[in-house]
């Protein structure tokens, strides 16, 4: 068979090094029940975006008096999160984590402190500027990272679908249907008709804009300021338009 021949010619795997942004869950308390309740409320703000999100558990200040980790893992998984590693864990907790299939990350307290303060600075800056209502809270962290490559969608975005370009721009080369949602931390470009919702600057970037060649949106939002179709300026319906944030106001401008 040709399949076996090609198997012999090519190695069965390739090992690649890759940098990935990971979300860290820093524990401040070992009351798992309360933690689960608070996390659940937090996740409810953007359930689709955070579903299955890989997570590093940082034992932080509770490392010394931490109870077993198995129960915590169950609770996190129940919420739809995917814990993949622990760090700053006591030896016995780390052993337990290894047995449960988690990786144990090397401690990195110095750089951790640094980036934490960087994140805090960005966070407070973002907060001063705006309070995004739609944006996932953990998106704040992405602001400290360099912008990632834009996301390009060539197939129609259908009713009920949600596309999120985390940390970058989103380019849609097809129609966004009524009931669909396109979201980006940067700009949103739509070269088909926009009949659904478009959200730019989801992590709080007020400089983000929405560009579309045929505007018919149900809702548009930039950095948490939104307009529904009833309130939108009707004169721009079915035209090419760009939408930007001017202070507190969404402003529309014809694209020619």
């Amino acid at each position, binding site marked *: 068979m040709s399949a076996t021949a090609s198997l012999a010619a090519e190695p069965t795997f390739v090992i690649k090094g890759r940098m990935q942004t990971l979300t860290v869950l820093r524990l401040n308390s070992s009351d798992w029940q309360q933690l689960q309740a608070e996390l659940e409320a937090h996740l409810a703000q953007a359930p689709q975006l955070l579903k299955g999100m890989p997570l590093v558990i940082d034992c932080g200040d509770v490392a010394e008096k931490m109870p077993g980790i198995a129960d915590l893992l169950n609770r996190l998984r129940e919420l739809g999160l995917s814990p993949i590693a622990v760090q700053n864990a006591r030896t016995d907790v780390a052993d337990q984590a290894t047995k449960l299939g988690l990786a144990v990350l090397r401690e990195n307290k110095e750089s951790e402190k640094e980036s934490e303060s960087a994140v805090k600075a960005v966070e407070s800056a973002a907060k001063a500027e705006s309070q995004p209502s739609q944006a996932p809270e953990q998106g704040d962290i992405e602001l400290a990272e360099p912008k990632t490559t834009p996301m390009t969608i060539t*197939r*129609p*975005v*259908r*009713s*009920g*679908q949600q596309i999120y370009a985390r940390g970058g721009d989103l380019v849609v080369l*097809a*129609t966004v*249907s*009524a*009931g*669909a949602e396109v979201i980006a931390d940067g700009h949103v470009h739509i070269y088909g008709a926009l*009949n659904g919702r478009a959200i730019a600057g989801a992590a709080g970037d007020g400089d983000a804009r929405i560009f579309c060649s045929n505007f018919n949106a149900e809702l548009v939002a930039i950095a948490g300021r939104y307009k529904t179709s009833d309130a939108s300026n009707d004169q721009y319906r079915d035209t090419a338009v760009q939408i930007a944030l001017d202070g507190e106001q969404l402003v529309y401008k014809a694209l020619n």
Partner: protein
Amino acid sequence: MAKIIVITSGKGGVGKTTTSAAFGTGLALKGHKTVLIDFDVGLRNLDLIMGCERRVVYDFINVIQGEATVQQALIKDKRVENLFILAASQTRDKDALNQEGVGRVLEQLAKDFEYIICDSPAGIEKGAHLAMYYADEAMVVTNPEVSSVRDSDRVLGILASKTKRAEENKEPIKERLILSRYSPDRVARGEMLSVEDVQEILSIDLLGVIPESQAVLNASNSGEPVILHEDSEAGQAYRDLVDRYLGVDVPHRFVDPKKPGFFSRLFGGN
């Protein structure tokens, strides 16, 4: 290798089962060995429309659960050569379906058949999901009204993301639109969406337009796929649709309002 085609819509009552029966019968009439599977467990209808409800001994669920073989459950159509039906169970519910079992049955059928037509239940829950999961192609049946179009749009999104082909990153499912219960006169009066409106919203290939027709109701009441009623417009539209599917270039009929004929103008009839 057999082609697995799902007939789906999201919304109920738009003509999925009518289309499944007509399309499957049409393929068989052209000499292709075809099996129709009813995925609407608990609300089986396909056997009624095909007129074989009294011949159901074993059903799809029996086969999935290993209580009968595929050969025992297949019902051979009495009118058309090469046409078989696998009925749904009326006494179970959708939970009796499971992904692995459906996959196994389809794999077995694929050895013997050219076309496997999966008649999906309405909705986007388990039954509908499993009907489309293994599909190679999809026919989305839509009526020319906004709620039906919106539901079809949603189903198209699921076809593009939650099916085997999507999960395995293979070539996407080929999607085609069937616009049924179309009434050109009502479109002209602005009471219905036009073919162009629907195509603009859904942006997929149009396979056929089936006119609203009394013949469809008559056919299903008498347990005959409407495609066998050659004198009816709906029957002719389905024949065109099958030809078009098989690669023959057939113009779309029944999309423009009828011009009053000489006699009806003379006598004022309709």
